[in-house]
């Protein structure tokens, strides 16, 4: 696709659209050249526009479509798959100034927001009204527009599902600058193809989100977290499907090995989990949360969960049933990514998802790769929904050797996930970094269909080029 360069005349027009918020050359913040995975490369936009309204987005899109200028939308830039970096240059549209919570519809349990509202901001605001926005990705300072664009998941996806389930409707700006509404504030629909669901998870390749109406639920009255240490890693992973088979519905269920817990504790400079319980050294832990309307309702549930894990070989079951203990229990888990980053010079990652009962096999395989490939691997993840985050760490390896080994290890992981009936990404997305793996996993036909859809939405291929379903 031959794109045009951004001309000084166009820049002047952009400045008329967004006065004082158009940046070029040395005035472009370096952060706008990458997301949180700089290993996938840094790409310079020709111009950055910090948009403040949908009208501005529409006007910019119209100009770019007419002039064949690529446009990549960007929220807080917390992505992990190279979704927002402008690989074809052109315009980067930054949405973080569009950060207003517009209105609540308490009769329909919805909230309407601009795309640049941060997840944390909505979570806190909704909580004040006794409401919960269930999606709970680890990165709380991502924008909601970004979360919707990647169909972000998070800890609570086990019980409540991912972002997709909570998007009732959205307003989007199409490639030609037209603004349309997708979906409606209704609880069900059988009204033709779901364009809404096409745009969710499309990583800015089909349209630019300008407004979101999201579903909320009443805040669960009580939550209890359980920390379950195991002496045996396989027994710990093996307990995961058993919890579901017992009819239990945890809000969150995370698996973690002791090494990564220690890494997080070192990063946090505090001990979070007991390392030795009843004289036995814990090698792995499950961290799970149950919610309910009252402690009386929760008691039999956590007792049942305890029975299940004890049968599977848990050393003990520790109970975090007060706000301070719950916060402490989750502090290590919430710091895993930062702790891993702090412990290595460079890293690569994958977030494959497999059927829940295949989690033990996948993790066992991932652990075996450390010796097989000769590279340090750390994994953790949402055991409860089959989504595992695996990180390969460079540490002191020469860069070339690291890149080579990382590619081998990641390739093997994706192959294994495929073999187990899984998919390339559970929640981080494809961006420009995972396309080859996606193509291998889904096959030509599916990729061709995706590309066809892309062309219908964006005939000039100006929206976030080279992402998700094709390479530049």
């Amino acid at each position, binding site marked *: 696709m031959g794109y045009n360069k951004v001309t000084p005349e166009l820049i002047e027009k952009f400045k008329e659209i967004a006065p004082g918020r158009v940046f070029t050359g040395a005035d472009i913040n370096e952060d706008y050249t990458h997301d949180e995975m700089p290993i996938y490369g840094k790409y310079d936009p020709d111009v950055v526009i910090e948009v403040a309204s949908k009208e501005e987005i529409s006007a910019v899109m119209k100009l770019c479509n007419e002039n064949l200028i690529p446009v990549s939308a960007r929220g807080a830039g917390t992505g992990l798959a190279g979704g927002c970096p402008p690989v074809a240059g052109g315009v980067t549209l930054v949405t973080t100034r569009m950060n207003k919570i517009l209105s609540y519809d308490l009769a329909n349990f919805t909230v309407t927001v601009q795309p640049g509202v941060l997840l944390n901001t909505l979570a806190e605001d909704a909580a004040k009204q006794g409401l919960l926005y269930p999606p709970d990705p680890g990165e709380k300072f991502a924008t909601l527009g970004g979360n919707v664009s990647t169909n972000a998941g998070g800890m609570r996806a086990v019980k409540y599902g991912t972002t997709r389930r909570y998007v009732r409707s959205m307003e989007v700006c199409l490639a030609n600058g037209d603004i349309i509404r997708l979906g409606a504030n209704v609880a069900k629909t059988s009204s033709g193809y779901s364009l809404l669901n096409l745009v969710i998870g499309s990583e800015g390749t089909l349209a630019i989100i300008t407004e979101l109406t999201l579903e909320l639920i009443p805040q669960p009255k009580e939550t209890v977290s359980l920390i379950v240490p195991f002496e045996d890693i396989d027994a710990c992973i093996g307990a995961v499907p058993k919890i579901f088979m017992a009819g239990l519905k945890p809000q969150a269920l995370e698996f973690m090995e002791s090494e990564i817990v220690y890494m997080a504790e070192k990063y946090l400079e*505090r*001990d979070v989990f*007991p390392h030795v319980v009843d004289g036995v050294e814990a090698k792995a832990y499950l961290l799970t949360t149950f919610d309910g309307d009252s402690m009386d309702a929760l008691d039999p549930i956590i007792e049942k969960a305890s029975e299940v894990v004890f049968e599977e070989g848990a050393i*003990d*079951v520790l*109970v975090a*049933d*007060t*706000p*301070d203990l719950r916060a402490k229990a989750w502090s290590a888990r919430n710091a895993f990514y930062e702790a891993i980053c702090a412990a290595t010079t460079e890293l690569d990652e994958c977030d494959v998802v497999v059927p829940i009962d295949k989690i033990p096999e996948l993790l066992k395989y991932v652990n075996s790769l450390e010796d097989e490939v000769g590279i340090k691997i750390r994994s953790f993840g949402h055991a409860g929904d089959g989504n595992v985050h695996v990180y390969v760490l460079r540490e002191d390896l020469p860069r070339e050797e690291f890149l080579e080994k990382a590619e081998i290890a990641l390739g093997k992981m994706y192959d294994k996930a495929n073999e187990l009936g899984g998919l390339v990404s559970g929640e981080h997305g494809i961006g420009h970094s995972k396309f080859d793996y996606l193509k291998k996993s889904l096959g030509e036909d599916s990729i061709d269909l995706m590309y066809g859809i892309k062309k219908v939405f964006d005939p000039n291929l100006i929206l976030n080029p080279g992402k998700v379903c094709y390479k530049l």
Partner: protein
Amino acid sequence: MEILVCVKQVPDDSVEITLDKSTGMPALDKVAVITNAFDGYALEMATRFKEAHGGNITVVSVGPEKARDTLRNCCSVGANAAYLVNDAACENSDTYGTAYALSKAVAKIEAEKGVKFDIIFCGKETTDYTSSQVGPMLAEIMDIPQVTNIIALDPAEGGLSVKQETEEGYNMVDVATPCVVTVTKPSYDPRYPTMKSKMAARKVQIPDITAADMGADASLMGEAGAKCKVVKVFEPAKKEAGVKIKEETVEETVAKAVAMMSDAKVF
């Protein structure tokens, strides 16, 4: 050793608390309650002491019925017994009233159990009113020694060897028992209760103690006996963001700071 740990149930201090405009008091209806953090450290320190040197731990709280949950939680992380000083006469006590009630409760529990407490642990302060007065006042009323702001203790001849945190470092203090110690944050956190310990704690009987039971003079407690009156509760003024001054050199930075202060007529 026989150990008593004094605990208070307080609002969760990890959430923002606002004032109820109609009452002028903090709006606590929707705020969860937790064990005062420093009391949690005190109980953990006491439990570690018990595990190393033997003994029994009793916890006591002056508070409403709801505080029974906090005492039960304490029983799941080391306490062997618990008492709740639960009397309308104690409501809205100031620190002296609370310390007086605790002193009377100590005598009542000692008589009932037929023991004498060797160490009385308190948190160094509560996270709601942060006065740091109850522990020291309790020691004064009971006329026994006290060491404040401790982070460790070991048995020593005739009493205890205590590590007291100061602004400059530490003091090692030998103190005779019985004594009061107030605990600041040690190098560890309170333990998690286990499923088994939670179930066991559910079965613990937590007797009520009334003002009459402990022979307390009701006029020294509660709002009537308070030596300290709350005139007004107000939210602190929000601090405006400061100005960061960073020039090429230290000299330029200082010169700019001085010039800015001069412009603002600071001097």
